[in-house]
């Protein structure tokens, strides 16, 4: 009896399998195409940026050597050296990291290790609100609050109206929620038994958090830092509004290193800021300006791509696994 039923079942299953289901196939095809669009987008980004950047470097006014060696970026006189833009980008990112890393990490430790369930319920949404505010609003904040604040502390003579310091600090504030939420997730994933063991050995809460939990969550925290750096480099509106509307050109040996080149209180346009300013006007295609922003864009894309992949690798490779 039982064998009979199963043979009948097998036969039915076989007949079911044979039947073609065109609608199912069609739907599955559509779903696959939807998923594959992301690949197309990536190829599109690389292709378009690469193509226009290639046109830029093929132009007789530009050489790859000049791009990486010249210290002035003045499209008007066909002078294309990436360094002024890169230095400003790095400076804004470093300042942002100096703000975001300590504040974000300390916030994460407090929320994960110290805060009661109730205060977490109040504080976490506040950070989420901070993360949800559009960057153009932060740009407004940098220009109308942070810059006047810096000028009133350090003096109008020291701090220019547009400067990298103010933009960097505000980008840092903008990234705090990102760092804190990623780091908190990493801390949260550390098993309770580790903390209990530390407490049982007589460690204080601070000692447990800093010497046991933090090292155990290090891979996740490192990943958070790397993502934060990539976010700071790609941040656009704050620097477009507050960091200045012109590359900080310099001549090595003539301009003082800390008075001008690395001075965060003078105006200096970043890579992203430059792209926005150039494309804000009515940009004509096939002009050297149009191609130049794609060369900058490609540089930017590659930097952030490497950073993001690095962060993923951190998590995968150095994660401590607890059973």
């Amino acid at each position: 009896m039982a064998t009979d039923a199963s043979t009948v079942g097998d036969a039915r299953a076989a007949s079911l399998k044979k039947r073609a289901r065109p609608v199912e196939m069609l739907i599955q095809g559509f779903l696959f195409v939807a998923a594959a669009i992301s690949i197309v987008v990536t190829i599109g980004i690389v292709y378009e940026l690469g193509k226009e950047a290639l046109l830029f470097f093929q132009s007789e006014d530009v050489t790859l050597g000049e791009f990486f060696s010249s210290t002035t970026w003045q499209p008007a006189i066909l002078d294309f050296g990436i360094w002024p833009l890169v230095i400003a980008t790095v400076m804004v990112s470093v300042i942002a990291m100096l703000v975001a890393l300590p504040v974000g990490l300390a916030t994460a430790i407090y929320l994960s290790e110290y805060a009661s369930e109730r205060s977490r319920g109040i504080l976490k949404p506040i950070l989420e609100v901070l993360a949800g505010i559009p960057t153009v609003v932060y740009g407004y904040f940098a220009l109308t609050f942070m810059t006047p604040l810096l000028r009133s502390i350090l003096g109008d003579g020291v701090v220019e109206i547009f400067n990298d310091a103010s933009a960097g600090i505000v980008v840092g504030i903008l990234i705090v929620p990102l760092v804190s939420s990623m780091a908190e997730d990493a801390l949260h994933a550390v098993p309770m038994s580790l903390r209990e063991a530390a407490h049982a050995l007589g460690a204080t809460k601070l000692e447990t958090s800093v010497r046991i939990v933090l090292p155990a969550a290090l891979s996740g925290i490192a990943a958070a830092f790397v993502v934060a750096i990539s976010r700071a480099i790609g941040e656009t509106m704050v620097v477009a509004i507050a960091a200045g509307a012109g590359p900080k050109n310099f001549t090595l040996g003539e301009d003082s290193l800390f008075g001008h080149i690395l001075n965060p209180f003078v105006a200096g346009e970043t890579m992203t800021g430059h792209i926005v300013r150039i494309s804000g006007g009515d940009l004509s295609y096939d002009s050297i300006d149009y191609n130049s922003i794609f060369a900058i864009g490609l540089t930017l894309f590659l930097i952030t791509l490497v950073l993001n992949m690095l962060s993923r690798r951190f998590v995968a490779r150095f994660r401590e696994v607890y059973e």
Partner: protein
Amino acid sequence: MSLPGRATYPEGRELAQVVAGRHRRGTIFKLTFLAALMLAVIALLTLLLQVIDSSFGYVALQNEVQPRELVASLGYGEDVDLVDLSKADLVVLLQQTISNNVGRRLERDQRFFDDRLVFENESKYVELCAGAEPVPGCSATARDQPGVYQLVVERVVQPTVLQTWTLLESVFSRGDIHAEAAAEYPQADLVFRSWVSGRFLVSPQAPDPAVAGVRTAVLGSLWIVAITLLFSFPVGVGAAIYLEEYASDNRLNRLIQTNINNLAGVPSIIYGMLGLAIFVRALEGFSSGAFFGVGGAGATTNGRTIVAAGLTLGLLILPIIIINAQEAIRAVPRSLRQAGMALGATKWQTTRAHVLPSALPGILTGTILAVARALGETAPLVVVGASTFITTDPSGPFSKFTALPIQIYQWTSRPQDEFRNIAAAAIIVLLVMLLTLNATAVILRNRYARRV
């Protein structure tokens, strides 16, 4: 604390001191951590305060013509404000002041009335509209009362903002402001003004900050978000279903997954450049609407249109929607799928009838958050080519556009103080829109959480 290799451990008083020291350090650091958190909270409060501070306050306004005189000239009493006048009355005021030439130009941009012409000759207008290049006014709807009011203020009253004060200044040094205004601007009116108002919402963009509004920008933003959603919701959810339900663990599918994760980290400005190269330039015929034979008011001859902007933002939020939808689908218990399969349903039937309905609240929450992100994006729109100055409402997906964040960016970049005020007011409008979206997402999430 004990040193390595130390034979004896502290005892008695010494031990108590060591322990007290460790606890002290613990307290100090706890306070430091708390201070960092408070710093973040203070930053948020300062930001909001700064925006509110600039959105309200005293203004020294000087009018070329007093609105009261205009109202009186039409025979109305003291209790009627210029704002309350009907469109017909406002047009009469315009006729009294502006030249016929200017009036004709305005009327060619947009008519005052659907049924009659004020400045232009009827037969001439018909001729214009029948010609090879019809003026925008031929197809656009007539100006509404807020639009005409704005024209009257701009052309007849002609207010000049001489100075503005912030809310805090207005509250705490009111006397000083009155004295200063009386001394420096004896001709001007000192009024307390809320820069964000109903008028501000319904007025179109204008060069004069005293009368400019955000209607054009808000409508532009809504259009763009609609296109964004139309593209990225079906595609994003489809991709998530494929990856969670259909994809086997092979190299291609792993590549797709890694790629999506990486795309989520690409700076938004890069998407703008992609949009510029593909939607604006390569697909110009499609995004300008020429392909569909769309023309008329607000249409452009190039690809810098709402469609191009919407699709660009669609690509930008696609990875976010996919990742959120994947999480929602993954959270659906296995047993639901197994039950469906056991009853003989096909994979798609199971997915459509069981998995999707229970994952839907999660998918919607993720989508709303992604839309909020799209609504606030500025950089890609600048790169794609938002118009710097348009005063007419977008008429469809193929018209040129501006958006709320773009408006904020442009007003913030102007050196004059009064532009800062309207930038702050526009920020409040944007934040309220975002807050509404986020609140919807939270409510959705909570309702969903309670049910399971």
